[in-house]
């Protein structure tokens, strides 16, 4: 009996860790920059419609760049040219990378480096935040003036 209970508890622990990683992997959000600039292999395409993971279509002219937030690791990109031909590609996103750059011309040309991590160079300093207000029963007043911060109402 002892052994069986131990076995079950280990199994439960495994399920717990599994669930956590599943949530992590499927939930991880990335921002993908859709880029239509010239690159060494291919130059930008004039007028192209790009749809990522079934989201709404982005219209890009040559030299444009747009941003899309993606949930999960899978990336399904559907590119439609002015002349109507459409191609669809499936890509894997590296888990740890928050920001990535997808070059549409590179993608169409089938180059390996179409999708590579994007390191934000000069990130604008986050707005100057006020001194952290720590409060408890002994110093700052515990009860904010408005007891209930007004939440944005649910979209009716």
């Amino acid at each position, binding site marked *: 009996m002892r052994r069986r209970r131990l076995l079950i508890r280990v199994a439960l622990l495994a399920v717990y860790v599994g669930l956590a990683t599943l949530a992590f992997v499927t939930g991880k959000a990335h921002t993908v920059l859709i880029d239509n600039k010239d690159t060494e292999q291919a130059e930008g395409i004039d007028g192209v419609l790009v749809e990522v993971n079934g989201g709404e279509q982005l219209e890009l002219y040559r030299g444009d760049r747009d941003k899309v937030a993606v949930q999960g690791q899978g990336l399904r990109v559907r590119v439609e040219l002015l002349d109507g031909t459409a191609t669809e590609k499936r890509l894997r996103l590296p888990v740890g990378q928050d920001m990535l750059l997808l070059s549409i011309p590179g993608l169409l040309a089938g180059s390996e480096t179409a999708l590579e991590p994007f390191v934000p160079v000069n990130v604008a300093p986050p707005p100057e935040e006020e001194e952290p207000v720590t409060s*408890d*029963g*002994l*110093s700052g*007043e515990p*009860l904010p003036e408005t007891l209930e911060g007004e939440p944005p109402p649910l979209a009716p």
Partner: protein
Amino acid sequence: MRNLRQLVTDFGWPRIIIFLFLVLLFLGAPFVRVRIDASIADVLNRFGQNGVFVLAMVPMIQSGCGLNFGLSFGIIAGLLGATLSMQFGWHGFLGFFGAIALAAPFAVLLGWLYGKLLNKVKGEEMTIAMYVGFAGVMFMCIMWLLLPYTSPNMVWGYAGKGLRTTITVEGYWLRILNDFLAIRVGEFFVIPTGLLLFVGLCAALMWLFLRTKTGTAMTAVGSNPIYARASGISVDRMRTISVILSTVLGAVGILVYEQSFGFIQLYTAPLTMPLAAVAAILIGGASINKASMLNVVVGAFLFQGLLTMTPSVINSALQTDMSEVIRIIVSNGMILYALTRKTKAAS
């Protein structure tokens, strides 16, 4: 060696740790360019400022009502006294002692009602005291907006009605006690003798009261209520007297605090003060049904010492505002330590 160990157990380990921590801060001060004399002056000032609050804890602990989480009633009475005295435009000593005189009837009335309530409710008195106190403070917040105060110094500029959140005591009775016979040594070091004398007077009166016939009866009710009842003492009357005393001292305490601090803080300010006073008396070594003058002095000194020293020394040493967090952990830790002692719960 034996009495050293005895001293340690009497004094209790947590208090020794805090005391050593405070000594460390004082020793470390010069290395981080913090002036020792200015710090000591600051500690003395804050000791006087909060001394009466901590003293207000003693009567209710002695009579077995436990820690007075409802001190806000005394503070409300004090605020009423202060605002009325300012409304009448009294200045200087008349202003300060007038405020005490005006606050006294409110304090006695509120104390009596609060005492009656506590007698009806045995068990979980502290939680009830806390929430009745909070409700009282909130009720006063509404009153501050409605009461017909007119003195320009206190009323909101644009509306002309309802009191400001903080009212300066400038020109009325600012530092009336602090500067009385103040001794100034060098540019930074000043001893607020008036303030210390006043606090000393209150402590002496309390020490004396505890020696009187009623005072003795009250202490007996605290240590064994059944014994007191068997000796013809009315337990409920003694507890009510101790609550009234604690509330009156609370009123005096807020006035002493304001004259030294410089501002009358209304609305939700009183919510935090009871916990600070409770933490101080417990750091001083008081238990849930026994508190002495020594506990008051040691407690107020250690607690205020902690409050003044940690921000200056720790911040400059570690370049962070860690002091806030340390103070929360230490003071609440002390209350927790007292609440989990094996003494029988307040009757």
